[in-house]
């Protein structure tokens, strides 16, 4: 079929040729288009590295070709430097892991001085994950990073389970809306709201973030959990509770993405949680995500980010799709 079609259009002028192909729904004659739009940003591929699992991008540069990524999301950044929680900070669980790193990061000043010049060299988009204890702290980071060219947008982490007051914006719709209303005027760059699964109604928070001014949503952050050493009767991680991530959380993440996407039609949603293969990513696309982030899997299989664009390309070709549009939200309940 493809061969016959090629022959058929051979003598047509190039403009007409393009036009005809465009008119055929789902017909991919050449490379499928892997780009994905997130607010005012166009990502080269719909695959990103999740915050806290990929450092500042350059750490994995020896083994991951960053051009395969739509974006790198940096480790959560706070205004003041944070030393993080005491150790042990992680515990491996069935098909997942618990972490309570405590948002260890260098703080805004050092970030601008030392990390931004490195981020500027990355051959991919950079989203800075922002965390704060108050609206003012979030706003200060967005304000100061807005003029910096290397920063393409902000992922606002309202959902870290490991800090005091950290969950207010994640679980209270009014607080969440207030936060994004306050952030909107600080930047023209993408504002992506990263939501927590540790809420009664994720759809309500999703709507509040969008209402406040978030142009896109990403979810989920980790699920609050814990583990006990029965010999000592003590917690496995020093912080007692921690965030669960990895394949174990994928079903919860899919449910949350589906609910958020239905609650906010037309708003780009980024799926996160337990992605370990293309098939996992396809599940997220089908329930409404237009891009996905790979987190915990980077630790065991950093090569997945190298493989995903090629695998998606092959999958789209096999389906006869020219781009992601017919895939996103194609799930039928």
């Amino acid at each position, binding site marked *: 079929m493809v061969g016959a079609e090629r022959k058929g259009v051979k003598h047509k002028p190039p403009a007409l040729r393009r036009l005809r192909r465009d008119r055929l729904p789902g017909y991919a004659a050449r490379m499928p288009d892997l780009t994905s739009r997130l607010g005012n940003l166009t990502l080269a591929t719909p695959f990103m590295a999740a915050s806290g*699992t990929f450092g500042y991008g*350059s*750490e994995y540069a020896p083994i991951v070709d960053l*051009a395969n990524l739509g974006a790198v999301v940096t480790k959560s950044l706070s205004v003041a430097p944070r030393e993080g929680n005491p150790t042990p900070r*992680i515990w491996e669980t069935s098909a997942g892991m618990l972490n309570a*790193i405590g948002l260890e990061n*260098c703080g805004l000043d050092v970030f601008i001085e030392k990390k931004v010049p490195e981020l500027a060299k990355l051959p991919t988009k950079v989203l800075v994950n922002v965390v704060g204890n108050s609206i003012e702290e979030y706003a200060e980071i967005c304000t100061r990073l807005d003029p910096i060219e290397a920063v393409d947008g902000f992922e606002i982490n309202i959902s870290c389970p490991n800090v005091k007051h950290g969950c207010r914006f994640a679980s209270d719709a009014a607080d969440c809306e207030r936060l994004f209303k306050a952030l909107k005027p600080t930047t023209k760059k993408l504002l992506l709201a990263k939501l927590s699964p540790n809420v009664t109604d994720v759809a309500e928070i999703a709507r509040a973030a969008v209402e406040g001014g978030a142009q896109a949503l990403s979810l989920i952050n980790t699920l609050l959990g814990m583990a006990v050493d029965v010999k000592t009767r003590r917690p496995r991680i020093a912080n007692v509770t921690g965030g669960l991530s990895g394949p174990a959380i994928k079903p919860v993440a899919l449910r949350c993405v589906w609910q958020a996407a239905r609650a906010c039609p037309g708003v780009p949603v980024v799926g996160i949680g337990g992605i370990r293969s293309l098939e996992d990513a396809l599940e997220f696309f089908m329930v409404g995500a237009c891009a996905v982030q790979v987190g915990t899997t*980077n630790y*065991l*299989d950093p090569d997945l980010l190298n493989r995903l664009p090629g695998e998606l390309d092959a999958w789209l070709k096999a389906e006869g799709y020219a781009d992601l549009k017919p895939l996103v939200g194609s799930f039928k309940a």
Partner: protein
Amino acid sequence: MNYAACIAAPKDFLQRRAEPLAQEAVSSRYFLLTLREPEIARRARPGQFVMLACRPDDPASCDPLLPRPLAVLDADPAAGTLALLYFQAGRGTALLHRTVSDALAGRSGAALRIIGPLGNGFTALEKVDAHIGVGGGSGVAPLVFFFRRLKAQGERHLILAARSAEQLARADCVAAPQTALHEATDDGTRGFRGNAVGALAALLDGPLAGRKPGLYVAGPEPMMEAAALVARQRGLPCRVSLEARMACGVGVCRSCVVEALTPHAHSGLYRRAICQDGPVFDPAELAGVWSGVARP
């Protein structure tokens, strides 16, 4: 395209699939694992480690999920092989043993995902007239590799400790040229009766009395803390190879941190990642039990 070249931070590590060639029990707790991985073998230095998957690479098998950090025992660039001496410590290493056995028997896929070589290894201490390794548990491998590659002048002693004789690794697996091996067991079933630090004190007060040796320490944390204390009290230079639960091995997950006495040049933080900034440290530069000094 290689972006690593234009970025300051990254080290020269690879991700590969390594084919297990042999696995042998060399004590009741140690297994000697030989892998074919020429590129990592060429780059590996003493004290460096690899992150090795415990299960064949299959998205459906995700328990245990994380790879395990294992120190390199030896690397043969000519043969393209990498030797690991792993100490069976928990579920991951038990599964690794079974996975490799199955692979060698042709019962499962052969290659294991491996990332490495990672971390900064041991370098010879200067202004010393002898080199003493103090090791136990999973600390044996990096020390043996260090003494096998050591070029510096000076007498060489390697103290290896275990609970009892049957746990000590077979002597040929831990032998290094011109290096005197001192074994120690808690129950006295072989060598010195007592722990590694007792054997160290005996060596320092006996054959090496009046000398200025450098100490290289790797093993269980209480042992390393005690050895660092000995070094401090006697004014001897010392290096410890720290271990911690790790997820990534490359400095991004921030799970394996230890506190230092000075801020880090790149982050301004007092935390060091054992995987990225270590695993080998001068205990005098660390806070708390390592140096006896609290962080400012």
